[in-house]
């Protein structure tokens, strides 16, 4: 796997683990419920053009589990502090799934340091009658099959034999996700009414066969956020960065380059 640096920053007495690679304009990648197991090819390819910063959210992955993380709001305030403390400006903020929800909560509070916002299969709102799938009630096999359009990818994921450390992190991420998103399931009822505050170029990317958060949500976000562009990725499930890496990279970099600010 290509290179990134790994480090930990201190925040309110706890450690936040982050991976960072590449150079250029900062691109802050906020991971989804499953976390970031490694510096995967999609991060590496983004780092060809940007200074990619990919933290493990506090309570996830290799980050500590501080008591102050109770709601997605808490992570939004954390990332606003993080951006300020790291001196980041003109940030391309990319959030996937749960990370998309966090990105939205950041952006409705302040877009001061953002150049653009990219949402990939984002959680955070609810369309009545179109719930997201219940990640928690699925067993491992059901989850793998729901995540990908391609059965072969699901098989590949199921065939992996994670180490004990990796299993611990999977479990930790599941608990961390439940803490934030068990009730209401994967959304904040108050978020929708503030989405009009988002005043940076916004790009909504969705797999056209997403079985976790239905593709209808792409159009819903597109309508709620003024001027948002929507890109549907064909033959793709909930994780375009994994399932359709080329199309994902093209979509993200194409949009971010046009809005380099």
């Amino acid at each position, binding site marked *: 796997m290509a290179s990134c640096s790994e480090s930990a920053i201190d925040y309110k007495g706890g450690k936040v683990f982050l991976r960072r690679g590449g150079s250029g304009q900062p691109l802050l990648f906020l991971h989804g419920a499953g976390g970031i197991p490694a510096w995967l090819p999609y991060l590496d390819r983004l780092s060809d053009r940007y200074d990619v910063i990919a933290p493990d959210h506090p309570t996830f992955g290799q980050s500590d589990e501080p008591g102050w993380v109770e709601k997605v709001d808490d992570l939004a305030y954390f990332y606003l502090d993080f951006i300020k403390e790291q001196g980041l400006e003109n940030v391309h903020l990319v959030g996937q799934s749960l990370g998309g929800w966090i990105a939205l909560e950041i952006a409705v509070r302040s877009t001061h340091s953002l150049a653009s916002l990219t949402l990939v299969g984002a959680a955070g709102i609810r369309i009545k009658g179109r719930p997201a799938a219940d990640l928690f009630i699925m067993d491992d096999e059901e989850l793998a099959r729901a995540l990908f359009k391609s059965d072969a990818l699901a098989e590949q994921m199921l065939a992996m034999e994670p180490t004990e450390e990796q299993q611990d992190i999977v*479990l*930790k991420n*599941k608990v961390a996700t439940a*803490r934030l998103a068990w009730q209401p399931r994967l959304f904040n009822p108050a978020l929708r009414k503030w989405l009009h505050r988002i005043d940076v170029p916004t790009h909504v990317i969705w797999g056209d066969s997403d079985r976790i958060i239905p593709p209808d949500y792409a159009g819903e976000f597109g309508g709620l956020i003024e001027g948002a562009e929507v890109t549907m990725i064909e033959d793709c499930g909930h994780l375009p960065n994994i399932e359709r890496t080329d199309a994902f990279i093209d979509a993200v970099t194409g949009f971010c380059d046009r809005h380099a600010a």
Partner: protein
Amino acid sequence: MKITMFHLMPYAHMDMALRARHKSAWVTYPNSDFDPKKGAALYNRYLDELELAAELGFDGISVNEHHQNAYGLMPSPVVMAAALSRRTENCKLAILGNAFALREHPLTLAEEHAMIDCISGGRLITGFVRGIGAEFWSLAANPTTSHERHVEAHDLIVRAWTETGPFAFEGKHFHFEYVNVWPRPYQQPHPPIWCPSLGSTETIEWAAHPDRRYVYLQNYSPFESVSRFLNFYRETCEKTYGYTASSEQLGWTAPVYVADTDERAVAQAKEHIEALFNKFLALPFEVLFPPGYLGMSSYKRVRQHKRSIAGDQTLEKMMELGIVIVGSPDTVRERILHCHRELGFSNFIALLHFGTLPADLTERNIRLFAREVMPALQPVGDEAYRGFERVAAE
């Protein structure tokens, strides 16, 4: 020994063909299978069975709480205890238990329990439980904060029962400007609190604390686990808290079936006990242990042992493990006395109806147990217990 009859009140008419198409009888098992007319008859039959136990001299009768399932039709055990409070005179009414912290407003349960305690003239036993994992799906409660909410709800209700109000309760999860519960409980300082559990060292350490000394009840477990957890309670009191636990602080709950011979008991109970475990109780691992319900190390332990409540138990295996007690009056009596000699618990809770056991067999079971088994158990005290010193020495 105090003997309590416990009832789960299952929906015994569950459509087994429909059940076979679902992973469990819980949470998402469709309530179209509940026929209100059949349900009405069942509720009244089950209440009759508990009232019969009260007449026959049981020390207590007991109900509990489960939501959105066919395993136990008592989302509010308070309703059942209220019905029983006016139809019984001397026996204890044990709610084993109520999950206070599943509610946004646990104070409402503190009020209702105080009402039952007053109506019954101080016969209430309050079972204080967190709720099994399945409830967190049904009541949309977050499992990751369940433990701290449970402890905080306890502090709220005990203060509401023991301190005169009004006072403000300023917790992390619960906030009340005016805590001033009317009525106050009949029993002072408050009704006894029991802690039923499927086996949790955290619960034991909490219940055994010298400020609480609550009764710990081990439910549905192989006798080996019953021994481990009850002895852990005594050991915790001895080593951690520096006092000697009384046998009144310990109890055990088990399904019991008595018939005139061992063979007949097994033949009559088999189908219905197996239905209890394999059809009504069986739960997928994910539903039984939602994320954060257990701490990391406990979760890993249960996952390793695949201790989901699996659906493939046989009566013979459960008898061998000592999860259930089935046999002639002699067999059942000797078994319970033997277990008491080993562990010295002062409370035995008998589940005398289970699964699909029909009314005639249930009534016969209650009567036989009351006539042939219970009289030998009730007089037994610590003199029959071999003593914790000997357990500790081993």
